[in-house]
């Protein structure tokens, strides 16, 4: 493999990440090639010694994705971190997917319930006094407000739960980068 091949495959593997992050990662390997050729080493030998660029790109992508999630807690960073962790190896997906689906379903249920609660509260507060004549107006408005507040706090709880889940996933991802990944690498080298 030539230097250009190696860099191209690395770039392809990192595609989709923020441009500065790709530039940083590629610069590390460009400098490595420069230093190696200054030391009189052959380009192809250096590329071989570096290892598989696709696998290196996956490791870098996971590291960058996890770091982004730790820096900025938003849905896009969360999705990135989750996919980066899943991209580390097929074994992770098989173990994680059922758990992820279950946890995701429960959280989705909480979100839907809280939205419904909020909606019912709103309707009760606004339309209640006109439709239900048996109860005093103030009681209906307060009951509606109470339901809306309940819905809002349920949303907050579900959000805290979601952040906690992604944090757990990130922790799991780091653990696997250290423990599981070497086992997969070993298979590649032996096989």
């Amino acid at each position, binding site marked *: 493999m030539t230097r250009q091949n190696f860099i191209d495959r690395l770039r392809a593997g990192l595609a989709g990440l923020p441009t500065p992050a790709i530039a940083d990662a590629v610069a590390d390997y460009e400098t490595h090639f420069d230093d190696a050729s200054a*030391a009189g080493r052959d380009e192809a030998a250096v590329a071989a*010694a570096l290892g598989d*660029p696709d696998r290196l790109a996956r490791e*870098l992508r996971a*590291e*960058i994705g996890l*770091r982004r999630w730790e820096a900025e807690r938003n849905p896009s960073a969360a999705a990135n971190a989750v996919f980066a962790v899943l991209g580390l190896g097929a074994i992770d997906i098989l173990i994680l997917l059922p758990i992820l689906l279950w946890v995701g379903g429960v959280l989705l249920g909480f979100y839907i319930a809280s939205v419904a609660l909020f909606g019912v509260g709103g309707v009760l507060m606004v339309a209640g006094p006109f439709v239900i004549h048996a109860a005093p107006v103030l009681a209906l408005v307060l009951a509606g407000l109470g339901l809306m507040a309940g819905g809002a706090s349920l949303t907050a709880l579900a959000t805290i739960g979601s952040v906690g889940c992604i944090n757990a996933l990130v922790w799991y991802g780091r653990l696997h980068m250290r423990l599981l990944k070497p086992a997969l690498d070993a298979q590649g080298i032996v096989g």
Partner: protein
Amino acid sequence: MVEAVQVQLKKGVLELCVLALISRADAYGYEIASRLAEGIEMGEGTIYPLMRRLQAEGLVETYLVESTAGPSRKYYRLTKAGAARFDAQKTEWTAFSAAVNAILGGAQ
């Protein structure tokens, strides 16, 4: 199989070796990669994702040094947290390897 165990062992102690190397003197990427590849045969490219992780964990930090030939070079140095981690891991490794050696010696 023996090869697989070797690779796992090497990867496991890689972080410790990198910390040890930088604790002696600040170093740049190629230096670290080639020194380690020399000592414990392994993919040199693995160093860079590892350096990124160590940096993200605040164990190492980087600074640029002007180079006479070509662009400026990125050096890595150990932070206080990195030095503390190195001491802890070194102690752990010494105790662990002593225990393994004692068992290996006893088996002969």
